[in-house]
């Protein structure tokens, strides 16, 4: 396992709720299991630090421009409606284009890490210009 990072520590279950205060409206299954397989990932939809983060299997994107290249294991993530490029690693961990070298437990954790990183900035549609 890579050495622990503060971000990874913060996304470890109970610590997250403590760190984020009441910012996250936690839904059941707050973080995807580290070894979830393609297709078994549940959708999520929550407001985290004032921003709407959503995730769903790309198959649920009915012509909404969902990225179909499979980089996210067929899973699409959005921040305030803008798609965030995510990717599933072979060990079941996830990264996103704004936190590309620091794997987290699942797509929801990747979305939250992105909100943390953005500090309120608008995500731009990918690919980057």
């Amino acid at each position, binding site marked *: *396992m*890579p*050495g622990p*990072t*503060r*971000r990874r520590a913060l996304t470890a279950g109970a610590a997250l709720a403590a760190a984020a205060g009441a910012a996250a409206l936690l839904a059941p299954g707050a973080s995807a299991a580290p070894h979830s397989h393609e297709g078994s990932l549940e959708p999520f939809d929550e407001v985290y630090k004032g921003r709407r983060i959503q995730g769903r299997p790309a198959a649920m994107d009915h012509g909404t421009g969902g990225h179909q*290249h*499979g*980089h996210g294991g067929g899973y699409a993530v959005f921040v305030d409606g803008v798609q965030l*490029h995510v*990717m*599933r*690693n*072979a*060990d079941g961990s996830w990264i996103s*284009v*704004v*936190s*590309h*070298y*620091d*794997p987290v437990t699942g797509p929801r954790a990747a979305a939250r890490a992105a909100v943390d*990183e*953005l*500090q309120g*900035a*608008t*995500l*731009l549609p*990918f*690919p*980057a*210009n």
Partner: protein
Amino acid sequence: MTVRKNQAALTADEKRRFVAAVIALKRDGRYDGFVRTHNAFIMSDTDDSERTGHRSPSFLPWHRRFLLDFERALQSVDPSVALPYWDWSADRTVRASLWAPDFLGGTGRASDGRVTDGPFAASAGDWPVNVRVDGRTYLRRSLGTGVRELPTRAEVDSVLGIATYDMAPWNSASDGFRNHLEGWRGVNLHNRVHVWVGGQMATGVSPNDPVFWLHHAFVDKLWAEWQRRHPQAVYLPGGGTPDVVDLNETMKPWNDVRPADLLDHTRFYTFDTQAA
């Protein structure tokens, strides 16, 4: 012959020339082409399909060629310039001269991560962040917050001791030298440095921060050190591997260079530490 030096040993004039050449490439648009290329590969290299620049055996030769292209672009501006390397196992604090205002500038301010000193600070006017994944156009850093510690020399040595270059499945799950150096497995060297710097360096558009080149020049040097330590070791895989660049296969985006052509860095440059 180009000699790549430890950034800590550069003279004031060498630093000035390096910075000026980097800013010249930014101004004429060539710099952002490198950022764009890197992000395209970061987003398309995946563990279960085609992978070339990252999470694969060609991580090292791909970045060697990428850095050669960048270094040659710098030399087209100023032939005296070579890429310096940052030994983050030695210069491991925010007080390193690397981060001084006469070189790369320091960490970002707490409120928004904005770098406020040095030649690449947005306020200096020479460093617009154009190839980006969000709305922010200023260089950002957060040294030592995403992860507290840079790798130590002992951790580097433990990775250099791994005798096999790479192993199946040839991706982020692999055992072997390449993946431990890249950092998806084990003590985590290369990836961790990106996280330690923070800001754009932690993203797919990491070459927006000029420290990208100094980081990768040291990763490249560690590959050379590993080769000297394991003279019998070879680049793997040797052939016939789907989605992966074998020893004698050409690499995108160049399509005219193979890992085999890049194994010996002395064809292109030497390091300041090499014994005469």
